[in-house]
């Protein structure tokens, strides 16, 4: 019975690996593959049988290594001997081996009980879930990248082929980027967006440090009430503010300016920045600051010399969060900016989204908007995740 479970689990795992691998290869690599059933079932079943006999233990240093190696060897040999080799089989075998090992690891197989089935089902669900999420998340971003590299006609010839035509040469591949950056002035939009996001970030940090310090450390009437009220504004929909702000900013001549935009972004980011920094300041022992005050520092000296150096991680997450919000913002940039010289990237993208501009350029623009955020995100992921969970980025 235990071996039967092993074979079954292995075969299902083999099916999953081969199906997802050939779909990915076809989609992302442009390699024509056909789903054969025999190889994955045979290979997976065999590996499952082995895994059921020599079950991997969690504590072992490299629990899946033997099965992976066996999978690699079989994955190369089996399709060859059946005459259906297609390359990549080694990888598929390797993954199938790991999966079969993972499925049967530490499992009570001889004989199985109810928990065995539950754990097996859970692990199956995990494997399918991981494949699903990775695919669903990566697919559009990959599609964006590929569509930005291929001329329209080439893409239309086979939209189901999302491979990068590397043979075209770098110059042709990057044609869309050249056009968008130079002909459609995205270089200027990048500078505008960076300016708006940086100024917003610096001003928000400055004002929210002051405000958060006051709420965290100083006694004044209506302290809690005030903070709640500020946080409440965070729940207001942008579109409700859009009509009056549009009208008033137009009459004041502030609408079509980057300064007007920055003021709106400040109002959108200050409440959360204040909230996040306040929570952090409260974790710093007040005695440190009192020592500074007794030594004769003024309040502002204490903030500058004691509080801020201790809150660098919080400042980093708040700053990143604000920068990201300002960089990504769409609605107000779209409504406020009319003159192409001061377009931000969001507004520039809307201008690019027209019948006359090829989709390749639009996708190149999308990549240009996205890449800086992604780079920042990966660089500072640690801080950013802290910021996201602390404040809950609105969106």
């Amino acid at each position, binding site marked *: 019975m235990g071996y039967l479970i092993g074979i079954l689990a292995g075969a299902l795992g083999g099916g999953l690996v081969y199906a997802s691998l050939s779909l990915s290869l076809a989609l992302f690599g442009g390699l024509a593959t056909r789903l054969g059933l025999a190889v994955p079932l045979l290979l997976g079943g065999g590996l499952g049988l082995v895994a059921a006999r020599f079950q991997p233990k969690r504590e072992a240093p490299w629990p899946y290594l033997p099965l992976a190696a066996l999978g690699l060897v079989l994955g190369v040999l089996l399709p060859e001997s059946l005459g259906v080799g297609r390359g990549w089989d080694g990888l598929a075998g390797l993954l199938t081996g790991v999966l079969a090992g993972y499925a049967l690891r530490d499992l009570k197989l001889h004989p199985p009980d109810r928990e065995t089935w539950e754990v097996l089902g859970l692990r199956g669900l995990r494997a399918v879930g991981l494949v699903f999420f990775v695919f669903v998340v990566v697919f559009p971003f990959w599609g964006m990248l590929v569509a930005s590299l291929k001329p329209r006609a080439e893409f239309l010839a086979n939209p189901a082929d999302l491979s990068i035509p590397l043979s075209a040469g770098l110059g042709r591949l990057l044609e869309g980027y050249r056009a968008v950056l130079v002909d459609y002035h995205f270089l200027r939009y990048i500078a505008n967006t960076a300016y708006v996001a940086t100024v917003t970030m610096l001003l928000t940090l400055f004002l929210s440090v002051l405000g958060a310090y006051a709420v965290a450390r100083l006694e004044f009437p209506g302290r809690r009430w005030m903070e709640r009220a500020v946080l409440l504004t965070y729940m207001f929909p942008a579109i409700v503010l859009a009509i009056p702000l549009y009208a008033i900013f137009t009459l004041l001549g502030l609408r079509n300016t980057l300064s007007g935009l920055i003021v709106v972004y400040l109002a959108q980011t200050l409440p959360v920045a204040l909230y996040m920094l306040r929570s952090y300041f409260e974790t710093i022992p007040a005695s440190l600051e009192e020592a500074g005050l007794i030594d004769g520092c003024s309040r502002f000296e204490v903030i500058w010399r004691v509080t801020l150096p201790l809150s660098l991680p919080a400042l980093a997450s708040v700053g990143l969060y604000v920068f990201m919000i300002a960089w990504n913002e769409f609605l107000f940039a779209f409504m406020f900016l009319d003159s192409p010289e001061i377009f931000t990237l969001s507004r520039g993208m809307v201008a690019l989204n027209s019948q006359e501009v090829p989709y390749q350029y639009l996708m190149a623009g999308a990549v240009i908007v*996205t890449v800086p955020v992604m780079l920042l995100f990966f660089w500072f992921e640690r801080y950013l995740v802290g910021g996201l969970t602390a404040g809950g*980025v609105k969106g």
Partner: protein
Amino acid sequence: MPRSLKAREARLAFYMLLPTFLIVVLIVIFPVIADFWISFKDIKLGDLRPPRAAVVERVEARPRAPGDPLVVAYRVENRSKNPIQAVRFSDALPPGVRPVSVPPGCQVTGDRLFCRLGALPPGTRRVLRLRLEATAAYFQAGRPNPRRTRPQAVTRAANPLLSKPFTLANFPKVFHDPEFWPMLWVTLAYTIFGTGLSILLGLFAAQLLVVRFAGRNLLRGVFLFPYVAPVIAVAFVWVFLLDPFAGTVNALLLKYGLAHNPIPFLSQRVWPVHLLGLELRIPLALTMVILFEGWRYFPFAFLFILARMQAMPAELFEAARVDGAGVWATFRFVTLPQLLGILATLFLLRFIWTFNKFDDIFLLTGGAAGTETITIKVYDYAFARADLGLGAALAVVLFFILALFLTVYFRYAPKGEV
């Protein structure tokens, strides 16, 4: 007597909070109040353009010899639909002329004419005749045409936000719009299903990444992609990928035989599905924007749920194992109860934010094909139909619905979790 320390501290706090407070009041609180104000006025988008007086100059008589009259007529016209309170204009006169008669409200100083006119109702005009006498110097200068210099006009008009009369006409228009109730249902469906889907996906994703394995941290970063990427980029990409003719998704469906014809995902209102002899009418575009909502915001729920799960004490799971609880029982009776607080908070937060959401649907469908939510409608009224008053009236309605939700939120939100 020096002020007490306490009063000084309160004063300092006041100054430190003042800028933040001012900005929030000016950019958030004040506009909400202004919404109420505008909703009771008939203000069109065009009213924001200040009315300008057009000053057209015409020469009615040109001198032939010194001493002849030179008559210049200025036609001042208000071509807009709004009243002008006052007009001022000035014009340079040609050299070598002497004023004979100056129209009322005007005066000639040196070689310039200055005029001040009173109110100019919409669509009216006034003509001012300036009689001059040409001297020899005028002919020496080569008989210059007075029209060579253009009159400079400055207009003062009332602020349309303040001057327009109050009206109650906007609210009946909002409620009698035949699309009002469908729009509310679409908003509700989008909010509830979008919120639910994003939290369910987030819960699932968190279960996947709570166990330790190689590459887990990388995957956690990757899972956050949809959430941190700019909305404009991801929305345009999905529009592109879901395109019926050039899109990859349809090409894949056709290639693997899952569909016989391309599916216009974002532009078709209803997609009939035949299942067991029953015809199900799926609201296609609405379903797609809900799926997008789930895709884009599951990382938010994922992040919170994962953080909560990693903080759960291991002893509880150990105890459950000792008691012989299976996988499902452990999840149902150990994990889930500890997640209830964060799930409730997430639901309320995401519910409110999804209800407020504008960008996503606007960029995906523009509100077409049965995806017009209340926020899209506000934009549609105010900017597509150029009726700010009507848009503000719907924004006020939106605000009241939101206030209802917020009351529920602050009433039931678990303490300590945002």
